């Protein structure tokens, strides 16, 4: 086997040195009754070539562009990924290294992450960002846990327009810790109804997502105004950070914590993972933050360099008192997103965000003209909800047959929204793709 360098001679000489008559004898410290009686029943071993064939045929069964025109967003976004990014992150010095515990020979990762932290802070308008968490959903859960630590309150209000999966994840995280979770209803314009907020006492955090699950921009400013100067932390979650290329940042609107999913920024969709949990907050909360942080320092020669820092927040030092249990995070995805953001630059980021918006508005307009109702009036970025005529299932299925995935049916998540579909339009869709969708919808 090509991964195993030991020749028979190597094995017998090494066994001799360690004083074991055979490979099996190496395991004598495992009691007899703990050893398995049966051999591993596994497929394989396959040759590299059999593996290639098998994986190629599995991959082929997946509905992806260019064969399929997929108008799905809802937490995972199809954006173009430059060949440079794929090449660079494939350099094995990045991909095969461990967490940079030995900074002298890990400065590549460390500087890249420090730059990532800076880019994320700039993008979200926040003071400081960590080195990543698993994904957007767990990032939001961590944000709520952190808010509870900071505010010493376990009562939180969350928007019902936060991604339904994220809400499931945060319930998983928070329920054993006995949080009280209040879900805020939504308004007919597709944004969270904040009316109730004034009357709730002792809130540790208010969390909304913007753009929210219906694609609409939330009124962040209103919440920021509400929480400013109180003990309640304002958490902005997101699934599509590209929106902040166009819209005001969470920081500018008064968020204490901004967190969400960074897959959109140059990371392949990969059927949902690995993603990138982005997490940023205000400076004063930094010691309550979960996750790793890279900080600037100098080496013995006085040269600028970077290290993992503020580790006293972390599990390997603080154990059960740590700010989070996270250890391995999404390092390479963070570096990927940094490569992507750096490739775009500020100018490109703005332009690309605008293009996403304009294409999505174009489709809105065309759908409208074709007689379909755009369900919510609030401004959107690259996703919006359309209402199809009653019995839309058949229509949706017909489009699938024509290799168009016409968005996500919302009824499973919001039963009150039958025949509503969440459509996503990124820069990957040409005007012709959009026109074709409308054409097919019209029948």
């Amino acid at each position: 086997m090509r991964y195993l360098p030991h020749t028979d001679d190597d094995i017998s000489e090494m066994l001799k040195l360690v004083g074991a008559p055979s490979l099996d004898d190496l395991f004598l410290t495992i009691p007899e009754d703990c050893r398995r009686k049966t051999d591993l029943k596994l497929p394989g071993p396959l040759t590299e070539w059999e593996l290639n064939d098998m994986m190629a045929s599995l991959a082929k069964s997946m509905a992806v562009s260019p064969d399929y025109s997929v108008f799905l967003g809802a937490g995972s976004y199809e954006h173009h990924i430059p060949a440079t990014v794929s090449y660079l992150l494939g350099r094995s010095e990045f991909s095969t290294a461990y967490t940079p515990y030995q900074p002298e020979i890990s400065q590549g990762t460390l500087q890249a992450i420090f730059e990532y932290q800076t880019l994320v802070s700039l993008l979200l308008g926040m003071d400081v960002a960590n080195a990543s968490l698993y994904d957007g959903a767990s990032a939001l859960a961590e944000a709520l846990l952190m808010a509870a630590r900071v505010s010493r309150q376990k009562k939180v209000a969350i928007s019902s327009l936060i991604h339904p999966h994220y809400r499931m994840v945060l319930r998983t995280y928070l329920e054993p810790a006995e949080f009280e979770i209040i879900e805020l209803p939504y308004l007919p314009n597709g944004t969270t109804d904040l009316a109730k907020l004034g009357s709730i006492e002792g809130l540790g955090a208010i969390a909304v997502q913007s753009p929210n699950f219906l694609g609409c921009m939330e009124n962040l400013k209103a919440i920021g105004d509400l929480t400013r100067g109180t003990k309640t932390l304002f958490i902005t979650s997101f699934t599509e950070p590209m929106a902040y290329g166009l819209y005001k940042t969470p920081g500018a609107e008064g968020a204490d914590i901004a967190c969400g999913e960074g897959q959109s920024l140059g990371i392949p969709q990969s059927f949902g993972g690995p993603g990138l949990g982005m997490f940023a907050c205000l400076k004063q909360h930094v010691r309550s933050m979960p996750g790793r942080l890279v900080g600037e320092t100098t080496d013995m020669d006085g040269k600028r360099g970077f290290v993992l820092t503020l580790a006293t927040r972390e599990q390997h030092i603080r154990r059960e008192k740590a700010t989070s249990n996270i250890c391995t995070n999404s390092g390479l995805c963070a570096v990927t997103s940094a490569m992507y953001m750096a490739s775009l630059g500020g100018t490109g980021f703005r332009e690309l965000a605008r293009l996403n918006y304009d294409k999505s508005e174009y489709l809105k307009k065309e759908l409208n003209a074709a007689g379909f109702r755009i369900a919510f009036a609030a401004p959107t970025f690259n996703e919006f909800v359309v209402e199809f005529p009653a019995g839309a299932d058949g229509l949706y299925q017909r489009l699938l047959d024509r290799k168009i995935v016409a968005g996500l049916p919302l009824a499973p998540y919001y039963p009150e929204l039958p025949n509503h579909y969440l459509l996503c339009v990124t820069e990957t869709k040409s005007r012709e793709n959009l026109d074709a969708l409308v054409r097919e919808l019209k029948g």
Partner: protein
Amino acid sequence: MREFAGATGLILQEPLLFEKGKKGRSGISLPRRDVEPAPLDETLTGNGPDFPDLSEVEIVRHYTHLSTWNFGVDTGMYPLGSCTMKYNPKTNERQASLPGFAGAHPLLPAGLSQGALKVIFQLQQALAEITGMDAVSLQPAAGAHGELSGMLIFHAYHKSKGSRRTKIIVPDTAHGTNPASAALCGFSPVNVKSNERGVLSPETIAEVMDDETAGIMVTNPNTLGFFEENIRKIAEIVHARGGLVYADGANMNAVMGIVGFGDIGVDVLHLNLHKTFSTPHGGGGPGAGPVCVTKRLEPFLPVPRVLENDGTFILSHDFPQSIGKLHAFCGNVGIMIRAYSYILSLGPELKKVSQLAVLNANYIKEKLKDTLHLPYDRPCMHECVFSDKLQAPLKVTTLDMVKRLMDYGFHPPTIYFPLVVHGAIMIEPTENESREDIDLFVDAFKEVVREAGEDPRQLYDAPFRSKFRRLDETSAARNPRLRY
């Protein structure tokens, strides 16, 4: 003297991104604009991020330079104990980047995503077979996430029995994630010590196990590199008081095909695909931390679960006792594809992997035990743990020695972990290292120890050859600068 690989050569400096570029440059191809600009609500509009603008060449050189400052598994031996820094096969990368996988949306209708669902399903089955457990969820995104899932399952299980237990037994050799994960579920860790053999005694457990205790978290093989030989007995004790047994399977690389965890009393176990199953560590992730359970705990696994029905795969949420979701979608599918490719490439030969990993570790232990203090002198599993006790009189620490190892061309072992060994040096070579390379590593360590005796300054100031010298971690923490 042997020729060691450590040497120096031209490696370029590189400023921060923010010290480069000029407004108006572009490092990306912007898609063609084929629609008109649409009106925009100016009250909501911002300025866009103030990133520097760089050309494509600048971007490529920037990251190429940074990459040369890193040491990876492809650079050389990376014997980080507990981390299983094995070779990351290139063919796995090829599979994960197939457009059908890399470009797949997670909310595609099941009928249009059979390939990915099949990979998930079959990987679950393979991991069940390898661990000897009954059911697997691939949703957790890393080891600690797997632990959290496990603790949530403990919590849900006890709740389903109508009880709320508040304590959990955690040995002093455990990884920090164990108590941290337990704490997230409201369990207070009860620390227990390992015995003079470096393992847990049943008596110790019997003393602390009670009806308030949800169970125990054991790392097996443990972080001293020993198999917890009393695991069956311990499990009996814990089970007898209504508790559950959690195994941290981070060290699975030692016992594939050797131990079936379901048979020895383990109820829940997590794996690290980024350790045992060869997926790259990525400088800190992403990984994947599947959680494996016995039949009776299967109802508690996270949803959605992938089910098979006559060769068709679906995602099901229909498990009312489930702990819920842990990840926005199905977990780190890109990592699963790599791990599955690895398992298919090895098949039943995975047992050989464990045998050779254990052989390599014992070989190092034998060869270095006259040079370094070996706190537990007995056969080890996939890793061996030394200490700096013999060097202490010279005022040379573990840190000094391993920094100097870099100059010889090796990545340091894990240090100061597990906590029970003062000045621990935890060496895990993995099965991928050849005997010659291990010999070279051993000789290098001996050289370092010789230097410690002759000229400790060489060690205090080491490394000398790396692009960066020792970094001041104290001032970094005292006055944190976390962004440009």
